[in-house]
């Protein structure tokens, strides 16, 4: 049988394939050859075959039949075999399969091998993919190697120990004695990996943390030597001595100093030194400064040091390198709560970052900007943020809009400014605004009593310009329905529309393709409400009766219901106040059902003729007495049923009963009940059952 083709030869051949199919064919042919070679237990070429298999695996082809062969290679005495065998194990085996356990014995032997490079292979493999069982079995060997004087092995054993601890945290204790003099090493490799090991132990165990706090002076000394020492060619990176070790030490210091005054004080000087002396022209220096800033902000540092840190971040923001700007914004976001005033000083630079080209930088700048908004800067900041909202990518618009609403609610300098800001958001990013914004905004508008005229006029104008943005249209419709009388009565600053124009607009919404069913519901309700405010009642009646046969079930129900009101209570039409009260209640129910967004809403009216004439004062309740209103909807499994009835025995009380039922199998949490009292003053008392 001819020798199997060599690895490089195979790679060359496969690369000549012009199509995926051709490649697949070559691969299959070679796999078949390899498989038969494996079956023949060929020791000479096993290594070559597995190497080829690994190449094919990287291209995406299955290679599981090579797993056992890797184990055989690992068990071989040849170094080449072991090298490829261990590589194959790391690539093809994973700890979920039982096969990897067979490696344990081989690894154990190799950990005790007389050749350090073989021991190194074993440590590397164990530290990369050792399962919990393997780690348990071999922890003792690793611990032994952690104490060796051979720095080549010691550094690897330290990182292998990190992996063991991550897999089997209970074993952490057994490595404690070996850590005793790790930091006295001169070898940077051992130092670096030791610091990593100590970091892992301190992060996992508060006891270890306490124990290792005493290392702070030693760590400070090592760091100092790194900074003060002259040029060391072996560890130099762009004029800085061993930046990797410096960064790691800074991180360990952070963990040690975190909630401890004494430790924090002991590291104060060195942190200041690193912060001021590190060369900032290259990424390397900035990496160290970045870690230093993180440490300063996390430990109990004195205020001077904290200001120094924030200023470093401020300088980072002005750096040409966008990576540096990115980490600056991330860090500032973390510290903005605790060091608010210091971060405020860099506000204008942060706001400039809103115009950056990079998406991640823009997002962070936006989050940070919202965090910096306060009562003093609200007007200026909001200008910038609204400008950002106008021009930003769609993925930002929802979050930005929400942020603007929140900030406006907290810090609005005046009600008018608030309403204007909301209008601006609705008109520029109306389709991205979150669903819950609509009821929140309606609530806000309701509460700003003196602004009703202004609001409805502005919203009406906005509707004239654009009816495509649904949240805007919904809020506008609601307002027009509610305050339409103010709109046409000359209370507005500009030329007021006449009733017919307003009805034109609302009817336009009903027929437009752009309107969603929810929006249509709002419009119809608004039109109906205007029947109590406008005089063109006949027109409204006509519209309402048309929709009594609408295809949309929801609209049809409403229209039918409203029609019923018209017919039954025509004689009451002139007692607008009373009718308004009744209709209001019904609308509240409908609006509420709208807001809940149910799509199988079934409001029902059962009516009987009133048996006695309406009497003053009790008319509403008389109406209620003969009219039972109820509504039902289910949203996301939460079923809600309303019923309205007159109380018994006290007929002056209207009882609105709401049954909320969880129809799903899962629990529902955070059920919030909010009740709003209608415009006419009624006493509302809530009893939970």
């Amino acid at each position, binding site marked *: 049988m001819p020798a199997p083709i*060599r690895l490089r030869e195979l790679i060359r051949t496969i690369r000549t394939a012009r199509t995926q199919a051709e490649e697949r064919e070559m691969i299959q042919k070679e796999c078949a050859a390899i498989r038969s070679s494996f079956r023949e237990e060929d020791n000479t070429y096993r290594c070559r075959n597995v190497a080829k298999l690994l190449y094919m695996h990287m291209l995406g082809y299955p290679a599981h039949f090579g797993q056992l062969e890797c184990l055989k290679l690992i068990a071989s005495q040849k170094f080449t075999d072991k*090298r490829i065998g261990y590589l194959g194990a790391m690539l093809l085996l*994973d700890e979920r399969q039982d096969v990897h356990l067979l490696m344990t014995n081989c690894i154990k032997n190799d950990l005790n091998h*007389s050749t350090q490079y073989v021991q190194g292979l074993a440590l590397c493999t164990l530290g990369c993919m050792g399962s919990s069982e393997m780690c348990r079995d071999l922890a003792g060997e690793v611990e032994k190697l952690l104490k060796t004087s051979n720095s080549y092995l010691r550094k690897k054993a330290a990182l292998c120990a990190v992996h063991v601890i991550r897999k089997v945290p209970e074993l952490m204790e057994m490595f404690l004695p070996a850590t005793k003099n790790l930091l006295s090493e001169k070898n940077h490799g051992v130092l670096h990996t030791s610091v990593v090991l100590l970091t892992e132990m301190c992060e996992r165990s508060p006891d270890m943390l306490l124990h290792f706090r005493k290392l702070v002076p030693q760590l400070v000394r090592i760091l100092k030597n790194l900074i003060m020492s002259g040029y060391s060619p072996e560890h130099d990176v762009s004029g800085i001595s061993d930046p*990797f070790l410096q960064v790691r030490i800074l991180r360990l210091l952070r963990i040690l100093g975190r909630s401890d005054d004494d430790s924090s004080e002991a590291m104060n000087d060195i942190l200041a030194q690193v912060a001021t002396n590190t060369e900032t022209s290259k990424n390397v220096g900035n990496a160290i400064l970045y870690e230093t800033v993180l440490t300063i902000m996390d430990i109990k540092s004195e205020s001077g040091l904290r200001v120094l840190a924030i200023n470093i971040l401020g300088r980072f923001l002005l750096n040409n390198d966008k990576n540096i700007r990115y*980490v600056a914004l991330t860090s500032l976001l973390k510290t903005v709560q605790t060091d608010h005033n210091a971060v405020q000083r860099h506000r204008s630079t942060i706001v400039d970052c809103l115009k950056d080209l990079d998406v991640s930088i823009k997002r962070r700048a936006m989050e940070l900007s919202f965090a910096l908004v306060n009562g003093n800067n609200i007007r200026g900041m909001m200008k910038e943020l609204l400008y950002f909202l106008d021009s930003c990518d769609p993925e930002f618009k929802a979050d930005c809009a929400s942020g603007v609403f929140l900030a406006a609610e907290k810090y609005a300098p005046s009600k008018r400014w608030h309403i204007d800001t909301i209008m601006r958001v609705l008109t520029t990013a109306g389709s991205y605004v979150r669903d819950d914004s609509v009821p929140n905004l309606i609530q806000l508008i309701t509460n700003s009593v003196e602004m009703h005229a202004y609001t409805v006029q502005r919203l009406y104008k906005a509707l004239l310009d654009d009816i495509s943005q649904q949240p805007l249209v919904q809020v506008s419709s609601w307002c027009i329905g509610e305050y339409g009388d103010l709109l046409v009565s000359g209370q507005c600053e500009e030329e007021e529309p006449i009733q017919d124009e307003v009805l034109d607009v609302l009817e336009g919404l009903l027929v437009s393709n752009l309107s969603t069913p929810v929006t249509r519901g709002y419009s119809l309700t608004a039109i109906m409400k205007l029947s109590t405010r406008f005089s063109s009642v006949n027109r409204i009646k006509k519209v309402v009766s048309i929709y009594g046969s609408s295809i949309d079930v929801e609209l049809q129900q409403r229209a039918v219901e409203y029609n019923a009101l018209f017919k039954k209570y025509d004689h009451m039409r002139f007692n607008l106040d009373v009718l308004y009260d009744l209709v209001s209640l019904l609308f509240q129910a409908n609006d509420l059902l709208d807001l809940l967004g149910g799509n199988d809403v079934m409001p029902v009216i059962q009516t009987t003729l009133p048996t006695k004439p309406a009497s003053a004062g009790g008319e509403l309740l008389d109406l209620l007495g003969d009219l039972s209103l109820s509504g039902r909807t289910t949203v996301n499994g939460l079923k809600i049923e309303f019923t309205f009835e007159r109380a018994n025995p006290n007929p002056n009380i209207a009882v609105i009963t709401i049954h909320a039922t969880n129809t799903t199998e899962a629990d529902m949490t955070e059920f919030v009940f909010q009740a709003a009292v209608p415009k006419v003053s009624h006493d509302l008392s809530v009893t939970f059952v």
Partner: protein
Amino acid sequence: MQFMLLFSRQGKLRLQKWYVPLSDKEKKKITRELVQTVLARKPKMCSFLEWRDLKVVYKRYASLYFCCAIENQDNELITLEIIHRYVELLDKYFGSVCELDIIFNFEKAYFILDEFLLGGEAQDTSKKNVLKAIEQADLLQECRREPPLTVCFLSAQLTTEKPL
């Protein structure tokens, strides 16, 4: 570090090193998605992106993308230096390394990576030490010269070595 991927501008994988246990299927999915995401980035964008719950640091060297997924507490800027150090090691070893070197000698690229990082962390911060170790290990494989004392017992078996 959770994993490192090397891939070409056409999205072909040249090296994959995983430091967390995942099934083959998951690895393939992650690789596909991440490669797509990184390749879609414009040149002016920064080297960091948030992806799932990880931070991803990537840098392009000629036709190869070097891409690392690190944890939230890891330092992105120093990760760039780690990537750079690995490239320097490859460069020194192969002599002005290019993508073809890594394609045809992928196993060596792995050996070098495994001598530099272990479990996702740097084992040695000295370029010289890492290169020396690789050199010595290669000698063990080839057995062309008189092997150093620590490994002389292997020389007898090594003479029957077949090159890959």
